[in-house]
């Protein structure tokens, strides 16, 4: 008899863990940084064509709420996370005493983007003229 066996749920039910969260965000930030690296030059060359000719676009970018992160801010955040996670990964791979240092690394890892986040925040509040 040809009965198709079902697959039990995986992504929908599995409880996220620290290591899996680190891993997927490392992948997401890496993919994002890769696109930015490849297309940022093209973006910088071509954005003038849109913003200086299409008036409504320029006005909307002016009138947007100040707390929305620009592409530059997102890229910097992704870079901070990616680098700190990469360092953490190397550290965990070569040093075997994980349990004792887990909280230590957790703190370091999440405080690494701290300066960037505060800079981004300050930039959003002082944004008066242009992005």
């Amino acid at each position, binding site marked *: 008899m040809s*009965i198709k*066996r*079902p*697959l*039990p*749920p*995986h*992504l929908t*039910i*599995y*409880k996220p863990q620290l290591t*899996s969260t680190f891993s997927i965000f490392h992948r997401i930030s890496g993919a994002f940084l890769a696109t930015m690296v490849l297309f940022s030059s093209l973006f910088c060359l071509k954005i003038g064509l849109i913003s200086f000719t299409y008036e409504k676009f320029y006005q909307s970018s002016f009138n947007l709420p100040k707390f929305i992160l620009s592409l530059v801010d997102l890229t910097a955040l992704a870079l901070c996370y990616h680098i700190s996670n990469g360092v953490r990964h190397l550290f965990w791979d070569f040093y075997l005493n994980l349990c004792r240092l887990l909280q230590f690394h957790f703190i370091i890892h999440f405080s690494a983007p701290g300066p960037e986040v505060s800079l981004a925040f300050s930039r959003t509040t002082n944004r008066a003229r242009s992005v």
Partner: protein
Amino acid sequence: MRRWRNPLNFQCLRNSNERAQEMAAKSQATVKEKVGKKLKDFKVFRWNPEKPERPYLQSFHLDLNQCGPMVLDALQMIKAEEDSTLCFMRSCGEGVCGSCSMNIDGTNTVACLRPIDANTTKPTIVTPLPHMFVMKDLVVDLTNFYNQYKFVEPWLKAKKPPPDGLEYRQSPEERKKLDGLYECILCACCSASCPAYWWNPEEFLGPATLLQAYRWISDIDFKL
């Protein structure tokens, strides 16, 4: 502490309907019994290959006061008392065989070592190992997993006969290298929790198999 008086002896009821008195006393006794029960909801994954319907989560309510502490005890009680068609694998009941591996509340474990969460406000959700084909209810097809284990040839390979001609001697340092590797019971919980193994089970060997490959590599035969 307030003592509960038998309602049959209440002054005001003595002259009223005796039948009503008896019923009230009886219902008070059963209320006490029912309040003493600690009902926990178990939502268990069900699928029968002989029935043409889709998989579903079936709710079972168990009295935790009558049940053993581990999730496997709960499953056995369900099978004994409520639904004997519930299908799951189990053997030792103490976490050394790896038969009862399943997903409990979002984490893969062996059911015989996972205590039941006593919080009765939330249900416990029991599903089979994620992204492994289901044969019936909580039993999954581990053929691919076992074939991958066979593929790494998990046995001692001696290139030379033993140095003294009698046996291969293992020093305590060499034995220490196996700590953390030999304990694997091949329950498939780790492989079934790996997203890379979910998306590519044919190409990727999985954490369990790779760990065992390393176990045999770091064993004495590698030096020989």
